[in-house]
């Protein structure tokens, strides 16, 4: 069955990146979850594929497809990075759609190197589609300096809980305030709208909260649009980890179950606070 070894097939020999996925939907769903901008940086690492999407150097969404989700995966260099039109990639991955109760669409990804297109080969029931996506040079991505040593607060919450809380947020204002309180032992999401203020309190003792690791009370405000970018990932996830550093930088990690393979994938979002309030 699947192993975490990086396998090299004879066919893959001439490619810088060669990967095979029995079910194209897996990559389709993960790519869609970070498609809040048209273009993305597509990186092939030893450990798997990383799709990074960035908006105005202020927020980043990263989908990670680990090698053990692939049937075959080989990359010849340490890190092969290209910029592609992510919306186009997603349309191509969905070319056959999903017909329930049938064998899933198989996918082969090939990349020869600089100047060559990113090739996708999809097969469904004898029908073959070949896509050649033009590539560009990868822009450098913002380094959020998300220092894992400087995480002050970390909360693991069940996705339904966060979904419910975010749906109550008043959209008339574009700011959301997140309070994690050590004294009151809760996570509070607040919005300040035209009709009034909305506060949603989730106590640490709530069934939704799996872990509440608070070192210091923090109050931070973030743009609601940054949370909205991550809604697709939230909807397909089972659990969410909210991590905030001492400078208020938010790192959200979504755990996405892949039932077809009984495995997990991760999608992360990073963004800075709007104003700092101590």
């Amino acid at each position: 069955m699947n192993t975490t070894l990086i396998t090299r097939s004879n066919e893959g020999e001439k490619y810088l990146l060669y990967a095979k996925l029995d079910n194209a939907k897996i990559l389709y769903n993960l790519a869609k979850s970070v498609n809040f901008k048209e273009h993305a940086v597509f990186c092939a690492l030893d450990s798997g594929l990383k799709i990074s999407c960035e908006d105005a150097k202020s927020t980043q969404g990263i989908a990670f497809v680990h090698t053990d989700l692939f049937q075959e995966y080989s990359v010849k260099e340490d890190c092969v990075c290209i910029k592609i039109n992510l919306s186009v990639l997603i349309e191509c991955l969905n070319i056959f759609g999903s017909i329930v109760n049938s064998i899933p669409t198989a996918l082969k990804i090939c990349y020869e190197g600089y100047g060559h297109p990113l090739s996708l080969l999809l097969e469904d029931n004898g029908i073959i589609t070949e896509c050649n996506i033009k590539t560009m040079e990868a822009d450098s991505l913002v380094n959020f300096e998300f220092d894992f040593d400087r995480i002050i607060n970390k909360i693991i919450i069940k996705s339904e809980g966060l979904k419910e809380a975010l749906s109550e947020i008043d959209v008339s204002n574009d700011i959301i305030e997140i309070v994690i309180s050590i004294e009151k032992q809760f996570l509070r999401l607040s919005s300040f709208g035209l009709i009034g203020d909305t506060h949603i309190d989730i106590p640490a003792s709530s069934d939704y909260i799996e872990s509440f690791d608070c070192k210091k009370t923090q109050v931070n405000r973030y743009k609601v649009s940054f949370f909205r970018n991550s809604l697709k990932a939230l909807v397909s996830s089972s659990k969410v980890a909210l991590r905030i550093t001492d400078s208020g930088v938010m790192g959200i990690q979504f755990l996405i179950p892949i039932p077809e393979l009984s495995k997990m994938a991760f999608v992360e979002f990073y963004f800075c606070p709007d104003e700092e309030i101590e």
Partner: protein
Amino acid sequence: MKFGVKLIDSSNIEYFTQIVSTVSKLCSKTASDKSCALKLTPDMVFFILPEFAANNLGSGGSGRTSFWISLDPKSIFDFYICEGKSMDDNLIMLEIQAENLLRALKSSPNMKMVRIKLTKRQTPCITVEIDLHSMSSKTSSRTITHDIPVKVISSSKLSSNDFQEPNINMTNLSILMPPIKIVKHMIERMKCLSDFVSLEASDQGTLTFKIDADAVSVCTYFRNLTNFPIHAQRQNACEYSLCTVRLSLKRLSDFINALQFQPNKIICNFVNNKYAHFFVIHNEDLVLQYLISSVLI
């Protein structure tokens, strides 16, 4: 001139509604004034949109399209009668807004019987009378009448070339299309990526859809499709082993999305680099012919 139709069976009512819905959608996308011709003969019923009426230059126009639908009234209607002006001229030709006919057929649920006939109110009309099932045993059933104005196209004004069935003399290659569900989905995705698609068919049963856009080029290969032989006795006939047409994805998508019934099969006749002639066949009772012309690069 006399014309009468009765629809009693609910599945017949539904099927005829689907057909009119298809005509209405095709008209709205191709005819500038959303009307088409309705030709009634004792044996057949036709909905026709001739090429000259479908010159759609205004809306992103690339290529002219036209359609020809023939229906077998004996299997679609529960009762049908048609008499023209005289024995030699035994047909009725009308210009109709299919949308109006559709609105009448969809006006109410619980239809018990639909009667359609030609009448003369202020102007010639197609009158649709719908008997509804009564809501309770106490109230008697109600009848709703719709009068749809139509124009009668006098046969003296028609030349022998008008409203003729599209000919297949120019066909170079004929192939059965792959399952419509797959093609429909694929065309929708391709529409997001490009404006035009090249269809390449071979006499070995292969059909390829190719798009070439700035950001991406996509090719979908279908194999093991059935080719149909073309009669080689005709003057202009030339059987090709490979045929290509370049079609507007919007036109192709509008055509496929207009189909409101489930066809048994769709055959495509290719005229190399000129046009694609589609035959949509449903059971033995309906044939829809639709032409999309090829666009040069």
